[in-house]
């Protein structure tokens, strides 16, 4: 119930994207410069986003529930877009660069049907990227010495000019995502 409520809240806050009253402020402040490394060890910056629609999602591979759910729904949504799937890039940015090295990310995203650009970097680079997208993340230490990451679980839709356009939540179903994306792209 709490999850649904929070999801609905985020959904409502962003529903109209840059057109909404609250959205106009948010629109200009979401997205921005970053310098990261992709799963093949290649540098990937905000400039590489241009020219395509981008679905940007921050998460980490040790997350067993929300992150795979979100990436799978995104992957299914891409499939439903048919030919237009080539117009959309999926970008997964790790908030856990300590463990999510390029090889780890490579094997992780290869499991999904859709091609996914998986990015990480130094702690400082990830911090910069998260700040650009107004993403909160924090390490939460466990009693056994391990840790989990708390993180904003919002999927940002950025247009080919790099402008923030809409959001999805991790529980947005693939059908709804595909329908919305198709509408935004037309």
């Amino acid at each position, binding site marked *: 119930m709490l999850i649904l409520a*929070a999801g609905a809240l985020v959904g409502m806050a962003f529903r109209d994207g840059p057109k909404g009253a609250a959205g106009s402020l948010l629109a200009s402040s979401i997205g921005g410069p970053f310098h990261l490394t992709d799963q093949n060890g290649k540098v990937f910056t905000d400039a590489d986003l241009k020219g395509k629609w981008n679905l940007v999602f921050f998460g980490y591979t*040790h997350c067993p529930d*929300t992150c795979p759910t979100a990436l799978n729904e995104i992957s299914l949504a891409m499939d439903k877009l048919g030919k237009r799937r080539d117009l959309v890039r999926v970008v997964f940015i790790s908030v856990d660069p300590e463990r999510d090295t390029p090889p*780890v990310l490579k094997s992780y995203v290869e499991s999904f049907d859709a091609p996914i650009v998986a990015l990480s970097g130094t702690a400082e680079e990830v911090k910069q990227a998260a700040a650009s997208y107004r993403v909160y993340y924090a390490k939460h230490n*466990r*009693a056994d010495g391990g840790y989990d990451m708390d993180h*904003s679980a919002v999927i940002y839709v950025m247009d080919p000019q790099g402008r923030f356009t809409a959001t999805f939540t*991790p529980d947005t179903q693939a059908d709804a995502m595909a329908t919305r994306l198709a509408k935004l792209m037309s």
Partner: protein
Amino acid sequence: MSRLSVFLVAVFCIIGAAAAQSGGAIEVKNAWARATPGGAENGAAYLTLEAPAGDRLTAVSTPVAKKAELHIMSMDGGIMKMRPLDGIDLAPGQETSLKPGGAHIMLMGLNRPLQAGQTFPLTLQFEKSGAREVQVHVEKFGAMAPSQAAGTMPVGGGAPPVSGH
């Protein structure tokens, strides 16, 4: 011992046995896990429990991972948080479901990725009814619910052998 006391002892035994029966067996349904992406060290398992007399799930373990814990996932203002749980209370006669987006059994340090079609054993530790072993069915990648095949899982002894390895 008088005839009456023998009769009373017998009655109490029957009542006792009946009570134990109705209050005992915890039903474990739809124990499933999701296939994990390559390189993922952690996975999650889900199931539905019903304790006729109420109980508390206090610990979990499985040979497929270094460690298994009860966790709760929550969304707080768009921020996803995951926290360990000391236990999960099972109200008498009420179904409690662990499912994606909520409480789950976190499998930490998987020995190998979980692949669809496999099954693996999971031991549930209950406060009152002790340990139970169930077989967890691995569903396809991204599944949000168990398939028909998961069905109702037998609990207790005589679990089917591990397959899929």
